[in-house]
């Protein structure tokens, strides 16, 4: 009896797992299948039919050219590197001050950031747009980068949490030996923050790479400031039904994310879990 129960349980367990995994990959797999079909094949066969030739790369080449992917990847890389450096520096510096120094307004600043996290980003863009316009930062990579550096609360919390576990005696002994506060931060604490920095890099990196809405809004000149996420926008127009090209484009944008995912699975999982505890 107990054995029968166990077998049923195991069957249910694996059945749901397989079903879940199947549904998760199906939409993407169909895209891969379609991306390898010739236009004639695409028009004449069912979407679930396998392509005749798995080495037919013309769709990818065409999508790469049509969507100006080379420029898109270059822009995305520039944005990613700058935003990561910028937001990690500002995030760690702010967390350092908030955690290590006791001053009037410390609590207030924490609450200001907390309250800011309640405001939904999309709603804010109604008026942020006007500010970006006034600053002349529409269609400007540096402007967009500064906007994206805008400190998000989650990373500040991750850093503050991490600082709490670094003993203050470290700072104090360094100060005694004549080190400045800047020195303490850059020479002693920053290197110790590495695990937290990696976590934030992953979370912020995924967010920045995938950001579509604000990139579309502030980098409107698609000929010059296209990013990987917005490059697909090209396919919404007259190409809207050519799914063999579109799917190829979609796959191209997914490849970097897939590689990063396979390489840093563990860090991504633990980073997300860490962010959730306080976020």
């Amino acid at each position, binding site marked *: 009896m107990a054995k029968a129960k166990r077998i049923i349980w195991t069957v249910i*367990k694996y059945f749901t797992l397989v079903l879940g995994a199947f549904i998760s990959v199906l939409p993407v797999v169909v895209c891969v299948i379609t991306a390898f079909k010739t236009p004639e094949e695409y028009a004449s066969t069912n979407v679930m039919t396998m392509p005749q030739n798995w080495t037919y790369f013309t769709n990818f080449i065409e999508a790469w050219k049509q969507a100006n992917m080379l420029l898109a990847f270059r822009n995305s890389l520039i944005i990613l590197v700058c935003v990561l450096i910028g937001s990690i520096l500002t995030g760690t510096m702010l967390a350092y001050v908030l955690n290590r120094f006791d001053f009037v307004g410390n609590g207030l600043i924490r609450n200001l950031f907390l309250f800011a996290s309640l405001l*939904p980003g999309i709603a804010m863009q109604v008026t942020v747009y006007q500010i970006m316009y006034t600053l002349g930062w529409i269609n400007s990579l540096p402007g967009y980068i500064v906007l994206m550096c805008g400190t998000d609360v989650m990373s500040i919390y991750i850093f503050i949490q991490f600082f709490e576990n670094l003993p203050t005696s470290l700072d104090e002994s360094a100060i005694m030996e004549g080190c400045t506060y800047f020195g303490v931060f850059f020479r002693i604490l920053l290197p110790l923050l590495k695990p937290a920095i990696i976590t934030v890099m992953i979370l912020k990196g995924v967010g920045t790479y995938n950001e579509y809405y604000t990139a579309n809004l502030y980098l409107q000149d698609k000929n010059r400031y296209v990013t990987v996420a917005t490059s697909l926008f090209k396919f919404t127009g007259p190409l809207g039904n050519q799914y063999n090209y579109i799917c190829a484009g979609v796959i191209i944008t997914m490849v970097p994310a897939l590689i990063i995912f396979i390489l840093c699975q563990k860090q991504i999982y633990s980073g997300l879990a860490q962010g959730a505890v306080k976020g």
Partner: protein
Amino acid sequence: MAREKSSFIRWIQSGKVNKRLCMITFMLFPLTLLVVFTYIPFLKMFQFSFYEMKYIGDREFVGWENYLEVFTREDCFQALKLSLYYIVASFIQLALALWFASILSFKTRGGGIFKGFMFFPYLVCGIAVGFIFKFFYTRGFVLDTILQWIGFNLDNLPYWLRDRSVNNISLAASSIWRYMGQNMVLFIGAIMSVDSTLYEAAAIDGANGWAKFRYIIFPSIKTIIVLNMILAISGSLSVFEPPYVITGGSFGTGTYFVVMNELAHESQKVGLASAMAIVLLGLIFIATMIQKFVEAYFLGTNGKEAIRYVRKQKKIEAQHAAQAAKGGR
């Protein structure tokens, strides 16, 4: 000159000055960003909501008219009704995530692969998700083919993205597809942080799967579940991406924010859009207050005991006291 300089440097390096300088330089950039991109826009939003205006050009003060319009226009406040679909979807999503997380937290053959497959959709960028699902739901394409395999007749199947009776469900389902894995990973993290000796003890006592879930897993991740349920509500009020990237808000799928985005950036009715934003901020604020209360009541925050628990304790204490008094007599 050299001496002056060195005394200046010494002054800079002296404890107090150095501390101040460090604080100011370190906070200058983050706080400027916060003010420029959060608080100034926030205040401007209040201001704009009382005007009829475009981004450029004249503006006219109209008082509360924009707010009136938000509540009376067909496409504004009505759009909030669509949130119900997404609230239901997010509860289904949490339930699924919890189910898979409880399975995958224990030894499972191929667990890592299942986890990876289910998590990956979270890393796909928004517009790619849009194309993937446009393709998925197109008449006669992926979903229809699969349903035909199972035995459905194509003529009886609805147009998944056009038919007003199902299209919001289709969109909400795509949102489950995208975010379930992320929820699952969060739950796995929470379950893993439970002291593993508890499970070992339970196994020795012969506890079955359900007992393990009911008495060990559930209590230890209650907090994060409640938190996610409430986040789901405020998240559902502000749903934006699924309709924005898949249908563009057509065929009655335009959620509140999709309507707002269109008003602001296409029709350039900035005042009305601002009023919409303020109204929703109010709703989210209320939802958050409720969240804080629920948290304090059931779970306790900042090291304080949960209010419910404190009351229970007090009751028990009172009972003990009463019994003691009785016994004493």
